[in-house]
């Protein structure tokens, strides 16, 4: 009975998204055939339920119970949200409820940017990920960012501002594509903030050519009532680097899913994360690292702090193809529970088909160490400050690895602000 009901809710929600597509399709720009194919895939797959292995720990039911609607009038006043964007001295592309806002943006000079429609990229797989199919079907806008061969493009911020526009609960499906030419460099500070209830279901394709390096700093600071799904596909050519860091503080239900493929020799991927969740927040970080060439390295350090009744999920898969000899893979997933009602689910997976590889993984779940807490208090540090120091220390191993000074400072400031709001 209850299983049938659950399926029913997910089905109804999928139908609502499909109905939206039928209503909008004439107006949607970009590759119509791709959308039509995605719609077909989404129609048959629906929203993934708990029986699907990849969604075993993350139930989409709370999202499915919300009736999303198109924001009727674009939100004009977002001064409050803009003021909360991290202080990064760089050009920025601002999207409000998924739509590009030229008036709020400062387009960079040394980077080719195209906006005004979805940037589908070529890496996403709507056949495998239903939410990517949903995005492909309904994507309206996004940024296509290209850095030419040999160019060091500095830093660029891409900001998503989510609102409950005009009192209606919006759903938006941004679609970005980032391409770095040979030897190119870029730091992309990818920020998502918002107010109220909305769904931000973003898909980003990243291509890093030979010897190029993308630093992708993601700050997920969505409204704690919002739903946030971000799927990233990164493909890294020989000697290229995709260095990503995900800070998760916001959203009632979030999932960041990163698929990184090391396609050429000596390519590097870092998929690091720090997460702080409280209340009834649910945060899922899912990674799939595919080693498809020899001598590549992947690093994942994931630190999660869970308060209240929050729940953290980490699913980390490392696939090593037969050709990928001398692979160096590392995955460490550590959680600190601040409350007996918090929960952490971890699922590391290694699939190794090469015989000369080094792959290590580990997972720990713990609490604040009472010895450490007493040590600090015995020196005069008040209890709450001591707890905060130990939580920061726990996160430090991950956050100290962010080499970009402004980006790291922005993350530390965001954590500080989060802490000041109380658990």
């Amino acid at each position: 009975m209850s299983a049938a009901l659950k399926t029913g809710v997910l089905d109804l929600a999928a139908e609502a998204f499909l109905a939206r597509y039928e209503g909008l399709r004439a107006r949607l720009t970009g590759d119509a055939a791709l959308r039509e194919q995605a719609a077909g895939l989404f129609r048959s797959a629906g929203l993934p339920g708990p029986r699907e292995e990849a969604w075993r720990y993350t139930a989409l039911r709370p999202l499915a119970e919300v009736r999303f609607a198109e924001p009727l009038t674009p939100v004009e006043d977002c001064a409050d949200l803009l003021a909360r964007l991290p202080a990064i001295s760089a050009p920025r592309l601002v999207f409000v409820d998924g739509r590009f806002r030229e008036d709020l943006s400062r387009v960079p000079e040394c980077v080719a940017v195209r906006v005004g429609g979805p940037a589908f990229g070529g890496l996403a797989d709507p056949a495998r990920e239903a939410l990517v199919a949903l995005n492909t079907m309904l994507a309206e806008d996004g940024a296509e960012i290209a850095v030419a061969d040999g160019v060091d493009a500095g830093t660029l911020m891409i900001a998503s501002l989510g609102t409950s526009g005009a009192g209606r609960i919006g759903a938006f499906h941004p679609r970005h594509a980032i391409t770095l030419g040979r030897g190119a460099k870029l730091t992309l500070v990818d920020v998502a903030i918002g107010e109220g209830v909305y769904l931000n279901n973003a898909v980003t394709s990243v291509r890093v050519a030979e010897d190029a390096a993308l630093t992708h700093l993601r700050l997920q600071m969505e409204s704690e009532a919002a739903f946030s799904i971000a799927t990233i596909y990164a493909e890294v050519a020989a000697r290229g680097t995709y260095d990503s860091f995900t800070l998760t503080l916001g959203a009632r239900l979030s999932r960041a899913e990163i698929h990184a493929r090391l396609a050429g020799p000596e390519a590097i991927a870092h998929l690091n994360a720090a997460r702080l969740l409280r209340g009834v927040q649910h945060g899922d970080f899912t990674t799939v690292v595919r080693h498809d060439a020899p001598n590549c390295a992947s690093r994942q350090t994931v630190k999660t702090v869970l308060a209240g009744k929050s729940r953290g999920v980490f699913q980390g898969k490392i696939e090593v193809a037969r050709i990928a000899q001398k692979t160096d893979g590392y995955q460490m997933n550590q959680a600190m529970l601040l409350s007996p009602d918090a929960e952490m689910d971890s699922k590391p997976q290694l699939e190794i088909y090469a015989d000369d590889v080094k792959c290590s993984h580990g997972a720990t779940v713990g609490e604040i160490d009472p010895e450490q807490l007493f040590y600090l208090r015995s020196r005069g540090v008040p209890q709450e400050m001591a707890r905060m120091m130990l939580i920061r220390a726990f996160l430090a191993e991950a956050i100290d690895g962010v080499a970009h000074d402004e980006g790291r400072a922005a993350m530390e400031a965001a954590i500080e602000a989060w802490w000041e709001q109380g658990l």
Partner: protein
Amino acid sequence: MLEIQNLAAAIGDKPILRGIDLVVPKGEVHAIMGPNGSGKSTLSYVLSGRPGYDVTGGSATFDGQDLLEMEPEERAALGVFLAFQYPVELPGVGNANFLRTALNAQRRARGEAELDAPAFLKLARAEMKRLSMPDDMLKRNVNVGFSGGEKKRNEVLQMAILKPRIAILDETDSGLDIDALKIVAEGVNAQRGPDFSALVITHYQRLLDYIVPDRVHVLAGGRIIRSGGPELALELEANGYGAIVDAAA
């Protein structure tokens, strides 16, 4: 002045301290010696407020204020300092940040002005020089990767910077070679004065060659069974605890 009257404490159902009476007047250094399991460390933890100990009777006051009613951080701000037998490692917490946070938290609690970073560094560097500690120990994480001697020196550094009014040194000599022992003792002696008192807990007499106490107390079975001058430590060293414990029984 530290005044302990008939103090009794237990861990769970197990009584450890069975009625301690002890007065450490302002400006004096007292040693507490005793065999293993006599309750020495428990006394230091009860005085500093470590969770897990139940005070089942008696009192402990410092300058008339009831220590046992206070949180550990309040005792610290009042001027109570515990040098740990096993200093705790704090990965991810820099030593400088730790020391400055602690110092300023105490100063705030006492209504004093906080020290800014340059003023703090000046103070810390001067004290480190005195303890023969390299400057880079400020940059390292608290006690992480420190040798036993470095950890103990770091405890004494904290004491030197926090300037407590009473320091409880819990087997600070354990695991130290003679050179490190001298440095640590010099660090403690440097604090001695009319406004500093100390309770030096030790198993061996050796430390008391370098930190000469005003009084020596022997703790056994959760009670102080004998008190005397510095010569009592020599007697213990010569005859062992057995004779004194048997005589008191």
